[in-house]
């Protein structure tokens, strides 16, 4: 594990109540692994389950933390990122409160300030979601 708890704030521009990553397990220039334990007070939890928007935001912030790790290595601050496009996104499981999400994100391509990310969210051995996401990074 390389980042945990409030140290995540160094990697991503989001702040509570919308922080959806609580650990970064590993990161390289091409891929990263991040996680989230779903808590009852998460704003995307409804009736004991993390809703679709929460799952996708977790993917987006895993990608943001991944980009943030690379920014930190080059001494930059995390940039604001916006989801430009979601494609081929399969939401198989709505994770229950207490679930530990472990998410693998991989950089498919990067052109200018646009990153294309492929992501897979697992709970144990079960695949909860897979997704392709285009993220626009805003330059300061």
């Amino acid at each position, binding site marked *: 594990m390389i980042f945990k708890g409030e140290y995540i704030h160094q990697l991503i521009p*989001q702040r509570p*109540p*919308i922080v959806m990553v609580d650990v970064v397990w590993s990161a390289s220039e091409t891929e990263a692994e991040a996680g989230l334990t779903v808590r009852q007070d998460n704003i995307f939890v409804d009736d004991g389950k993390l*809703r*679709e928007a929460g799952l996708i*935001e977790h993917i987006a912030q895993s990608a943001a933390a991944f980009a943030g790790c690379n920014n930190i290595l080059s001494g930059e601050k995390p940039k604001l990122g916006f989801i*430009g496009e*979601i494609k081929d*996104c399969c939401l198989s499981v709505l994770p229950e409160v207490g679930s530990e999400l472990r998410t693998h994100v991989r950089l498919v391509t990067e052109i200018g300030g646009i990153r294309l990310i492929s992501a897979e969210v697992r709970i144990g051995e079960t695949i909860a979601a897979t*997704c392709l996401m285009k993220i626009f990074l805003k330059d300061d």
Partner: protein
Amino acid sequence: MLSGVVRICLNPDSSVYKGHFPGEPVSPGVCNLEMIRRCAAAVHHQPLRILRIKQCRMTSVMTPDTTPQADVNITLQETVPGVYRITAAIENGNVSYLTMKAEVADE
């Protein structure tokens, strides 16, 4: 086939904007997605769950300052019992914020 338009208001006091982003309130793309899910449920008169997003394009940034209100357009077509193809868009005047094609199911 079932279709409808729901007019929504962004709540500038929502706690979401405290964290997304500090000093720069922007409606998170995934919240726009959640608006579609809830508006679709309102049109359908039954809760819906998103199974698969074929494509969702977020073309403009929505903020409570610049976009206090918007229209959510929903079209639902049943493919097999309880499963629907949804086409949805969020727009205001001639500005498009989001377009989506997905598969949803009765919850």
